[in-house]
């Protein structure tokens, strides 16, 4: 019998005795009784989010400030171009990395800098020495100030995490309200064939491992900038 069969066998044997469901234990500590059907709608219990775009954008901005993410709403492509150029100039970018996409194509053309494309196979040390990685995304999440992306929407796995500055180009209609909505969107988009990696990014890389003091840029990008058009 294979190890798999042995383990599954032990599991089935163990499960022949039922364990009590949580919430069926009565007592003063039990404030919430068991639900009849297993819960699937978490939005009523998670942090509240407004319905309009303005409310969502305001919440995203508030969360970003807390996370030290640079979140900017831009009206159109011209404004995006201006802001990108300003950023590149301020940060002193010499080389950037990006992937092919509607917004990213526009961005790297606008910047006119040497570029590493992660479309096909690329050289890792080229990516490693880039000053910034510019990607698109699958969604933004207002509730948590997060970016949702995948290997397909953001040019592979390393682009969004190796360069020290990650820039995300998003569209207004990608700003979703909460985490349940984000997972629904991923299922809708990729349900038939998932990419090998998807990720929920919330702020620049950070650690509190030294004396519980917050330091940004532990291993991933030290800076995260999001332009939402």
């Amino acid at each position, binding site marked *: 019998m294979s190890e798999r069969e042995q383990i599954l066998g032990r599991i089935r044997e163990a499960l022949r005795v039922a364990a009590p469901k949580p919430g069926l234990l009565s007592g003063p500590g039990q404030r*919430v009784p068991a639900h009849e059907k297993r819960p699937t709608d978490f939005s009523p219990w998670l942090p509240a989010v407004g319905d309009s775009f303005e409310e969502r954008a305001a919440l995203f901005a508030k969360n970003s400030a807390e996370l030290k993410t640079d979140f900017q709403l831009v009206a159109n492509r011209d404004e995006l171009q201006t802001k990108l150029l300003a950023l590149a100039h301020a940060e002193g970018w010499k080389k950037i990395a990006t992937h092919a996409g509607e917004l990213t194509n526009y961005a790297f053309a606008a910047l006119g800098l040497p570029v590493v494309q992660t479309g096909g196979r690329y050289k890792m040390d080229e990516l490693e020495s880039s000053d910034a990685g510019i990607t698109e995304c699958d969604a933004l999440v207002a509730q948590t100030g997060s970016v949702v992306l995948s290997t397909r929407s953001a040019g*592979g796995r390393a682009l969004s995490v190796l360069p020290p500055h990650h820039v995300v180009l998003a569209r207004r209609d990608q700003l979703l309200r909460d985490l*349940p909505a984000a997972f629904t969107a991923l299922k809708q988009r990729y349900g038939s064939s998932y*990419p090998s990696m998807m990720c929920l990014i919330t702020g620049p*890389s950070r650690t509190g491992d030294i004396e*519980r003091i917050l330091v940004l840029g532990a291993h991933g990008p030290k800076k995260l900038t999001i332009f939402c058009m």
Partner: protein
Amino acid sequence: MSTVAETFKETARRMTRDLRHRSWIQNALGKYYIGRDEKKARFQNWQEARQAAAEIKWDAVNHLDKYLEQFVSKIEARGTKVFWASTGQQACDYIVNVAKKHRVRSIVKSKAMTGEEIHLAQALEKSGVEVVETDLGEYIVQLREEAPYHIVFPAMHLTRHEISDLFNKKLGSAPTDSPEELTMIARRTLRKKYCAADMGISGANFAVAETGMISLTTNEGNGRLSTSLPRIHVALIGIEKVLPTLDDLALFLPMLATAGAAQAVSCYNTFIAGPRQEREPDGPDEFHVVLLDNGRTRLLADAEQRDTLHCIRCGACLNVCPIYKNIGGHTYGTTYMGPIGSVLTPHLRGLTEWKHLSFASSLCGACTETCPVKIDLHHHLLQNRRNAIRCKSPWWEKLIFKGFVILMNYPLLYRLGVKFGWLGQKFHWLIKGTKLDPVYAWTQSRELPPLARNSFKDYWRRKQS
């Protein structure tokens, strides 16, 4: 040679007297409490969320065979190699062999408590492979050659000066007292390791059955880098980590972060479905998932304590435990410390040797109160005690409690006993606090209250007449 229990008591004696350690940990956790309460308050209903999380985990664990099979079939369909390991040794052997087969020379490891549990790093190093921990806290304790202090914050017990000295000694870096600079030193060193490593090892916080994915949480991005750059990725996962659907993550990710680290949600929550796909520009060519039993099916069979397997390893119970706060993480001498460790370890490693952890608790219940998936932790400690006594009880203790029953069930004897105690107390001062004192365990550090001349029973009798 002292037993595990004796070592525990010795170390606890030393640690509880260390006032510097006491105030250091109080301080560190103080910040956590404030942050945690603030993030909990953002939930519209934290208690409902807890109940839902508990029910979902109940569903997952009580249908474990079904969900495991679903998870494996989906993830294998995308080219993942799945290995089922009944024991830690089997898991180690498999991973060592994968490394050998692919001529792996260096490995970058993202934090995995299962890895600590089976001593994976040691097994790989013995086979001649370099293993580098990439989580900053784990990297620090790896350099110090000591065990993690906490399951989420491995280096919580160290000051910046100690870390600076460590880096100076082991990495040759200039001393500094800036946490930022220290982090950058680690970043620069580890970056080279990521780029050069042949294999990346990770754990997983959840194994999503519906879509056949693992969910990996980090704040530093070390999980992303360890699983993106090397050509082989191995994920070591306890079989109980299963979660039924992808949507469940919308509840579990914020709860894990809030309870464990006082954050709304962790920085990087990565969902890996398989190795690099044909049209993807990067990612590992091979992805292996090692499913680890190592005693978990034994715990599953204990229906009374089965909910221990609901644990999402958030560390919240450690953070509120007054025992943990006073003795520190290393004193436990186990992979898993704090309340969850005390409940779990006897099941994974044997009741006889590890029962003392279940007795080393005042059963305050703060752990159960804080657990995001409502594990009945402190009641399990009581059950472990009962099981330990049923297995083997010290003869003198059994005698004492038999005496207890007699004294309590015969009121006349009880009253005599109390009067005797009152009289005895008059002479107690002669031997109080010395080794002759029968209640030395109390009087070594505390005074005893004087027994009243008239007990409540005497009062009541007088009142009736």
